């Protein structure tokens, strides 16, 4: 039986359990619902839970463990000529057996021993499926009778159902948290592997980045250099240009929207500005590469500067434009959160609108605005597509915005694109960079959120 059939049958059984639980509860109360502890549908849910959940848990465990058990049994049945091979080769053969069993293409001409093993594999799985179906059905029925037997007007069905719902909610949030932990751990372990090949001091302080390592011993250009400082400076340079564009523009438009704009204008302008936030960064990327970069180069050359066609300036400016709605929208909310009473107080003293904004509203909103800017910085540092397309790969150590620079994210992307071997320092360096990037953005986010929260508490 395929998986969907299992689950469908289980669903139908649970539904039947629900109806049964309901009617049993009603009749156990002799038709007087006020005698029941909970509303009848809770008794239904109670029974449905007992029918569905144990069987579902069994199903999950079974499908998780079945593969391992069956694999071990098949492996044990293999002839001695194969079991004497190395572990890696046995793994390859097991893969072939799986492919044979499922009718996929195999990497070698099937030997009789392998075909036999594949048949055996299918046989075992057949037995397993049959057994699963029987056990699940039995468990569901047992649950049904157990729960039905417990139904009694005094049974606290609502409390028990709500407790189970509570556990389910906790499990769902655990999945999200554990995934995050898993991502961080995998990043950490690969980074540690990298740091055993390249010492952290060389990585963090080295001034030359050229991650080309030899795949074969006789290759030219063998020694890689893993000094990430040029990447850090490149990242900071582009982020700084982006913030130089985004903070003034974003802040000014936020002030206009929250203080000066009539509500009609605000109602139109704000959504339009927020469309900017909805443009995919890839689109910004080719705007940067095809429009902005040539424009910067042409203007620069006509002014007599030598501008490379992939300049930090072009990438930074476009990234800044991308971040504007981020800054303006957050700042707008924060400025709006400044109580009207403060503005009234200032107007009441004879202050003009601009004096009120400069001396009262902005200082009051400043912590929140700083928080918004920090969030935008971490966004700028982590941004990838724009810089991949517009900033280039040349890891120059320079502070000149007209030169080509490369960023941490660009290097991570290029290092991991295409076929890679995951034991060379070249590939692993991506994880080292990723760890640095993660640490920096995490720190910025934590600081920013703290600042914003502290500001919020002040007026609540």
């Amino acid at each position: 039986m395929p998986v969907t059939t299992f689950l469908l049958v289980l669903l139908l059984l649970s539904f039947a359990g629900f109806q049964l639980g309901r009617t049993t509860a009603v009749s156990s109360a002799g038709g007087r619902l006020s005698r029941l502890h909970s509303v009848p549908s809770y008794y239904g849910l109670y029974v449905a839970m007992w029918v569905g959940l144990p069987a579902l848990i069994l199903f999950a465990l079974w499908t998780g463990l079945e593969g391992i058990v069956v694999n071990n049994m098949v492996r044990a049945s293999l002839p001695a000529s194969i079991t004497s091979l190395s572990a890696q080769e046995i793994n390859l053969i097991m893969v072939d057996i799986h492919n044979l069993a499922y009718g996929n293409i195999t990497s070698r001409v099937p030997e009789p021993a392998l075909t036999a093993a594949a048949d055996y594999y299918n046989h075992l799985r057949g037995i397993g499926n049959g057994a699963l179906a029987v056990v699940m059905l039995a468990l569901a029925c047992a649950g049904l009778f157990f729960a039905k037997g417990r139904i009694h007007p005094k049974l606290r069905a609502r409390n028990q159902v709500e407790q189970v719902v509570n556990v389910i909610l906790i499990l769902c949030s655990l999945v999200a948290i554990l995934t995050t932990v898993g991502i961080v751990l995998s990043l950490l372990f690969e980074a540690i592997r990298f740091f055993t090949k390249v010492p952290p001091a060389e990585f963090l302080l080295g001034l030359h980045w050229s991650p080309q390592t030899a795949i074969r011993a006789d290759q030219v250009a063998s020694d890689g250099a893993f000094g990430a400082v040029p990447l850090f400076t490149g990242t900071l340079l582009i982020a700084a240009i982006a913030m130089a564009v985004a903070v003034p523009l974003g802040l000014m438009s936020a002030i206009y929207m929250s203080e000066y704009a009539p509500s009609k204008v605000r109602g139109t302008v704000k959504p339009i500005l927020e469309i900017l936030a909805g443009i995919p960064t890839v689109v910004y990327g080719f705007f940067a590469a095809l429009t902005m970069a040539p424009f910067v180069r042409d203007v620069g050359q006509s002014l007599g500067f030598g501008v490379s066609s992939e300049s930090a300036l072009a990438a930074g400016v476009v990234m800044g434009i991308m971040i504007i709605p981020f800054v303006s929208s957050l700042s707008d909310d924060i400025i709006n959160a400044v109580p009207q009473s403060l503005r009234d107080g200032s107007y009441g003293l004879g202050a003009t609108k601009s004096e009120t904004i400069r001396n009262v509203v902005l200082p009051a909103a400043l912590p929140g605005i700083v928080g918004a800017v920090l969030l935008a910085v971490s966004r700028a540092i982590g941004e990838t597509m724009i810089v991949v397309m517009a900033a280039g790969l040349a890891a120059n150590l320079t502070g000149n915005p007209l030169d080509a620079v490369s960023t941490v994210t660009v290097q991570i992307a290029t290092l991991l694109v295409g076929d890679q071997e995951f034991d060379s320092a070249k590939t692993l360096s991506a994880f080292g960079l990723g760890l640095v990037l993660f640490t920096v953005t995490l720190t910025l986010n934590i600081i920013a959120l703290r600042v914003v929260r502290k500001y919020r508490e002040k007026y609540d």
Partner: protein
Amino acid sequence: MTAHTQTMAGIAVRPQAGTLTGTVPKMDARGVKVYYGAKQALKGIDLEIPERQVTALIGPSGCGKSTFLRCLNRMNDTIDIARIEGLITLDGQDIYDREIDPVQLRARVGMVFQKPNPFPKSIYDNISYGPRIHGLASRREEMDEIVTKSLQRAGLWNEVKDRLKEPGTGLSGGQQQRLCIARAIAVSPEVILMDEPCSALDPIATAHIEELIDELRENYTIVIVTHNMQQAARVSQRTAFFHLGEMVEVGDTEEIFTTPRDERTQGYITGRYG
């Protein structure tokens, strides 16, 4: 913004001393009507505000007394949908005249709000804010003097003289309100409008503010909106009773509270409604 009808003729024929005991009114309202969008909040108010006296505006919630107060320093200008008709004068000059800058008007007619609203700045900066934007002090010492004087007049000096650099928001509610009064005094206004200045305060802080109002009467003209009739009786010399956007009755406070002419006034002050 304000469809103001010029009625300069009206002001000329109006007897200056009028019902008052020989004094020229500091502010004078004639036929003031206010609309919020389509809704009429004030239906033609005539009220004289005598100089160096406390005028109390009383009446049930929503009767328009705060709206009227906010007309006196054009705070309603900051509300987009508000529209004002009629004539209001300060020292005989129309405050809704095109020549008058509401910003300068508000420096002459200061305001204290219902909820204490100190700026999130230090106590010193809260007071010096007004004088600084109006350029009242050119040197540091002058500013120090203004701050000291204002705090002294507001009866707050002894409590805060050692912590002028601390944020004004850290003071207690009553102290914050006195800080706001000191802030209003600092720009040397001629009139101070108070919109239920004690409604967010406890009885002791309220008593403090009431004493203060009584002292301020020597130098300033004060208009106070209050829900508390004992307060109106304690601090004011004249009382105006507002009801449903109209001014029902105005007179000496004693008179209003002992022998009200209108039965609505009587109903309100004896607690039958409101």
